[in-house]
């Protein structure tokens, strides 16, 4: 009966769903990818000007562009998935340490292919993107390995590649995919499918926060894994949690459109998570290994778990999207 009820609701109010996805596309998604492309262009310029790993301007430009990626990365569908662009920008978690290995290989062999952007864009994803650049700028070993000249060229190659990839994503969104999100045509056949994609962006974004950004360094009580904290070399682990919360909240509120009770719960949930994150004073989650500070990181993770429950338990059903019959099964 539920499926039938859903069909009827959508038949009665198709404009509302389209309006919702148009608003989210225009006010959240496009600006996120435009900002990412602009900041990445600035990063490329900064690297062209000064490629020294200690350069304050380069590091600042890197920080801005990386942050723009973290904010946009919830929208992992369509343009980010073509040619594995998302992985080319951000290959993490790197459970087999492929990135430092790939970079060390390039530096050791002084592979000249990096000078050609078209060629470099076909190189291993592990040697590209924000996490590769983080090693070159912040890792004590890789930021001093080999010749300065080659590392400089590699820093520039990666920055150029990031700028180009983010430009392609932006263009793809503007020229093709925004229209797909505004009304069902090719990729989606109904408003319900579009809303489902947006809800999935939100649930996946929260899942990455819970299981990856917090769960990986937390590990288990007996075996905490502080070295797994995301972007710890640049000291950005906790900061990325906040960036991500700030990017996900407007999406959640937009999806809860017109449901003021639910919006209030969402606002309160995000506020609690943000409060706990801001009071941590532990930029790279080093405290996971210390029982006294560990519980505070666990308590932040609990807030995010509560948000996940709110989204799947209340927002999903409100939008007529049920959690996956098979996805939840585990068999």
């Amino acid at each position, binding site marked *: 009966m539920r499926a039938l009820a859903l069909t009827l609701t959508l038949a009665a109010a198709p404009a509302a769903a389209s309006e919702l996805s148009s608003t989210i596309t225009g006010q959240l998604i496009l600006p996120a990818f435009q900002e990412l492309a602009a900041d990445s262009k600035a990063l490329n310029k900064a690297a062209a000007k000064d490629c020294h790993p200690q350069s304050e301007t380069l590091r600042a430009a890197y920080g801005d562009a990386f942050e723009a990626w973290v904010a946009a990365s919830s929208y992992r569908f369509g343009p980010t998935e073509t040619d594995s662009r998302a*992985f080319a920008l951000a290959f993490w978690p790197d*459970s087999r340490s492929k990135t430092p290995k790939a970079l060390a290989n390039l530096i050791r062999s002084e592979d000249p292919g990096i000078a050609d952007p078209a060629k470099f864009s076909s190189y291993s994803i592990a040697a590209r993107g924000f996490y590769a650049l983080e090693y070159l700028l912040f890792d004590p070993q890789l930021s001093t390995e080999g010749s300065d000249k080659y590392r400089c060229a590699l820093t520039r190659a990666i920055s150029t590649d990031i700028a180009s990839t983010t430009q392609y994503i932006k263009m793809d969104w503007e020229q093709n995919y925004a229209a797909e999100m505004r009304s069902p045509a090719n990729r989606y056949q109904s408003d319900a499918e579009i809303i489902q994609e947006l809800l999935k962006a939100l649930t996946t974004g929260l899942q990455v926060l819970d299981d990856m950004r917090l769960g990986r360094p937390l*590990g288990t009580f007996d075996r905490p894994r502080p070295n797994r904290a995301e972007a710890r070399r640049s000291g950005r682990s906790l900061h990325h949690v906040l960036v991500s919360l700030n990017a996900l909240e407007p999406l959640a509120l937009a999806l809860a459109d017109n449901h003021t009770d639910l919006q209030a719960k969402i606002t309160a949930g995000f506020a609690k998570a943000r409060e706990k994150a801001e009071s941590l004073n532990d930029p790279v989650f080093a405290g996971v290994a210390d029982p006294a500070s560990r519980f505070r990181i666990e308590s932040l993770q609990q807030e995010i778990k509560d948000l996940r429950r709110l989204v799947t338990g209340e927002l999903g059903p409100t939008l007529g999207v049920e959690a996956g019959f*098979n996805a939840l099964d585990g068999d």
Partner: protein
Amino acid sequence: MASRRGFLAGLLAAGLAPQASWASAGSPAFLSAGKDAGGAFLLAGLTEDGEVLFRHPLPARGHAAAAHPSRPEAVAFARRPGRFADVIDCRSGAAIARLEPPAGQHFYGHGAFSPDGSRLFTTENDYENARGVIGVWDASGGYKRIAAFASGGIGPHDMLLRRDAPGLVVANGGIETHPDSGRTKLNLPDMRPNLSYLNLDGTLEEQMELPKELHLNSIRHLAMRPDGTVGFAMQWQGDLGEQVPTAGLHQPGSPARLLAEDDPRVLNMNGYGGSIAFSADGSQIGVTSPRGGVLQVLDTVGGALLKEHRMHDVCGLAAAPRGFTASTGTGRFFAISDTGQHRLHRADLAWDNHLIPLS
């Protein structure tokens, strides 16, 4: 003068008797367990486009099914830790038998008929002894339980007939569970999944284990190519975010080959292979992940990931003339080809994990 009985026996022996066949059941192309809009569970027979030909109610959630090789009979297996397997006449939907495992055991959701259709094999958990069991049932009449043997490991899940030799191949997932603690996994630190090749009497002929660093990758689901190559799908029990393969190929006598190991897109599977199937020509193998909402199609020769197809809550998968057919928890059927995905019928049902081809 020959007696009537003798005459009929002769006809049967010659294979001339007017026996009921799958054609008389409307020739469904697939079987699938499902859930209807009211929340009731069932087994359905489906056309190749996903239209429902028959529904048979099940007492609880089903999982996979097995089709008799000649008679229009199917067995719907309970989802673990269920204790029913319903044998159904697919012409009328009538119940032929309900199988129940011995006390202290439950079904795992999969099973297979012997090539001649005389026996049915079921994967089971002997949970008091933490032992995987294959139950053997007499499918030539009455479905009496006639034997049981060890599955070759803990947690046998999918099981198929070998094509290169008489026998069975069993995916022993390696995970110990006990109904007292529901579906809680009891032995993750020590789990050791394997593929076990058993002859039809239960003798273990060969076993394949994954490299040690992949012992947390539970081997769950299987696909069989006519040359006897086995495709297996895995479910990672370690930390999320580890880049681990979800699919592999194995030929008896050789080491296993893991597919697309170095492609970062394996992370899109969320460590969870739901169903696996070879393409009709055997050159490709597909693996679904409902958790990632994606079907990945891999090249069986080079092992590379060829294409991803995104479908919400996709899980069931079978070969189709031009690629694959996939089913989803939202009732959809998709035709998958090299160029993309094409929507087929949508039923007002949630299709459960597996699409069982009848051929």
